């Protein structure tokens, strides 16, 4: 374990992604330890989601190296990412609306019988177990997820990430569609996963969420990382300043500070 504590669980080094002429992610280097939560913040189009899509295999990087426990790995599609126990909860939830919760939970990783037939009963039983932990009131196992509420859909998306022994979890705006009670549930879940030693990248617009849950905070601005800071060494105002101006607090001029106060 001493070795594992020194090498980060994940390291993304010098990652670049460009869409045509738009440089969405520039030379980004970021790492994550086991049992750590990194809050990834930034304005719209700062490159947070794109960076995470690289790690989850949804979009390949143009250049850069991803290492897991010190070993360089190639992640060129979502299947590769899942093989390294990287699970993602997408902002759009990425559920197939027309099939039910068990089918979504096991999508791409179905349980089959010896003859290769789908074992729907086992999948439903497993789904009942996982959902029993996440959302005990959930009973609509045979309904297409289209007919579920936002919170229930979120629970399905989270259950899918939790069920398959994730070691690295990416959560892209996990509470954006939720009411206060459900947001509280997700926060508890993040803490629980953290205790289980899972490393979490948390993308959020909600600065309170980020300060509540993260160990370190990385601020992105126009595709670059402005700074990565320990939560203990900073405060929400400093982070907000970095999000808006794209500069570390000590680089900010008096004029910019005045403008910032004006906007706030």
């Amino acid at each position, binding site marked *: 374990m001493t070795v594992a504590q020194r090498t980060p669980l994940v390291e993304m080094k010098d990652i670049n992604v460009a869409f045509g002429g738009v440089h969405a992610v520039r030379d980004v280097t970021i790492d994550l330890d086991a049992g750590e939560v990194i809050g990834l913040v930034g304005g719209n189009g700062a490159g947070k989601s794109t960076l995470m899509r690289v790690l989850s295999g949804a979009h390949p990087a143009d250049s850069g190296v991803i290492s897991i426990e010190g070993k360089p790995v190639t992640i060129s599609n979502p299947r590769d990412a899942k093989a390294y126990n990287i699970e993602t909860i997408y902002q759009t939830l990425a559920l*197939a609306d*027309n099939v039910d919760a068990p089918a*979504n939970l096991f999508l791409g990783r179905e349980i089959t019988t010896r003859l290769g037939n789908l074992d729907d*009963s086992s999948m439903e039983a497993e789904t009942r177990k996982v959902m029993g932990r996440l959302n005990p009131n959930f009973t609509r196992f*045979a309904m297409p997820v289209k007919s579920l509420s936002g919170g229930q859909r979120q629970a399905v998306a989270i259950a899918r990430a939790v069920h398959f022994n994730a070691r690295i979890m990416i959560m892209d705006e996990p509470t954006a569609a939720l009411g206060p009670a459900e947001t509280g549930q997700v926060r508890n879940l993040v803490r629980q996963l953290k205790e289980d030693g899972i490393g979490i990248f948390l993308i959020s617009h909600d600065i309170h969420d980020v300060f509540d849950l993260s160990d370190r905070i990385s601020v992105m601005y126009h595709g670059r990382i402005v700074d990565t800071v320990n939560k203990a060494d900073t405060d929400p105002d400093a982070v907000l300043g970095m999000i808006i101006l794209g500069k570390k607090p000590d680089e900010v001029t008096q004029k910019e500070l005045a403008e910032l106060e004006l906007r706030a």
Partner: protein
Amino acid sequence: MTNVADAAPVSGQTQPPARRSIGGLIAQTEIDLRLFGMLLALGLILLTFNILSGGKFFQPTNMVTLAVQASGIAIIATGMVLVIVSRNIDLSVGSLVGLIAMTYALLMTDVMPRILGMGPDFPFRWLIALGLGILLGAGVGALQGYIIAYVGVPSFIVTLGGLLSIRGAIWYMSNGAAVSGLDPIFQLIGGGAKGSVGGTLTWVLGVVGCIAIIALLLNGRRQRRHFGFPLRPMWAEVLLGVIGCIAVLGLAAFANANLWPKGISGGLDIPTGVPYPIVLLIGVTLVMTWLATRRRFGRYVYAYGGNPDAADLAGINTRRTVLKIYVVMGILCALAAAIAVARLNTATLDVGQSYELYVIAAAVVGGTSFAGGIGSIAGAVLGAFVMQSLAYGLSFMGVNSPGQNVVAGIVLILAVGFDAYNRRRGS
């Protein structure tokens, strides 16, 4: 009343609250209301024609002919469901049926006896020809599927090109001539008095069907109990079993009421039983339902149709899935081509002409949605029977084929309109 539940059925289901209303009772049997409604509509159409014709329409001969005529369309429609569910289309099925039909005819009249040295007495010649036709269908399907899935040309364009060029290729195969004289055993695939399984085997099929229904119900109950899922009430299980068995045995009796023509049977009453094309259709329906609901392939087709991005992000190889759909479609076209060419004992240049339209109509009348992700195999088969019953009934009443087309077109629009209305009201 949505039928999306049948898009990906699961064996466990939450028990709806027991209500003392008819709707509540029906809900407890977990019958698919949409399929049930289509079955009623089909019965109503047949009954109407029977009354209009003064009771002549409902004779076993008519019904068996109708079923045989619908079988080819119905077989391809089971594949068209998967194509449309995956947000694609296949306009080339009619031309592909024609191409494979011509291939069968040329194989058995020319290539096999002249080049391969397989004379009329060569064992299983018909099966070899059928196998080659299926390979050709799978190959053409794979080619179209590859261009659609991997090159990224829209399926409408690829299969429209297929519709034109494959039909043109048929002309070059025979220099425009019709080719006739198929293997006598191959001709049995087309049905008719000889091309039927006979009275005894029909009863055997019926009994096997009943045993299968009961076994499925028992197994479902056992599974649910094993995992502690809510059970269907006992009366509903028994009712489903009894109705299922009566329907299967009733159809068997009906098929056996169709007798050999007196001229051939020497004046004896010999039941013909179920024609081979119908046996083929039943087999295809079962296999396709199994593929669609019990296999990963089917699960991926529906998930992809429901949300292509989600399927990709879940790590599904969606391109390979789409390619496979078109391979399945090619194989089904080969089976339908065998029925068509065997029935006529001739391959003309226009075998399968306009099939694509009837097949798409059957799938859509059967509840397949162009928005993707929704549709069932059984629905498409029922849809094919609804369309064929209308055509057959109208021609029985002396309405000519332009008149039949007018009705078919209106019914298509009405069926989809009714469905859209229901879905809007349901959601």
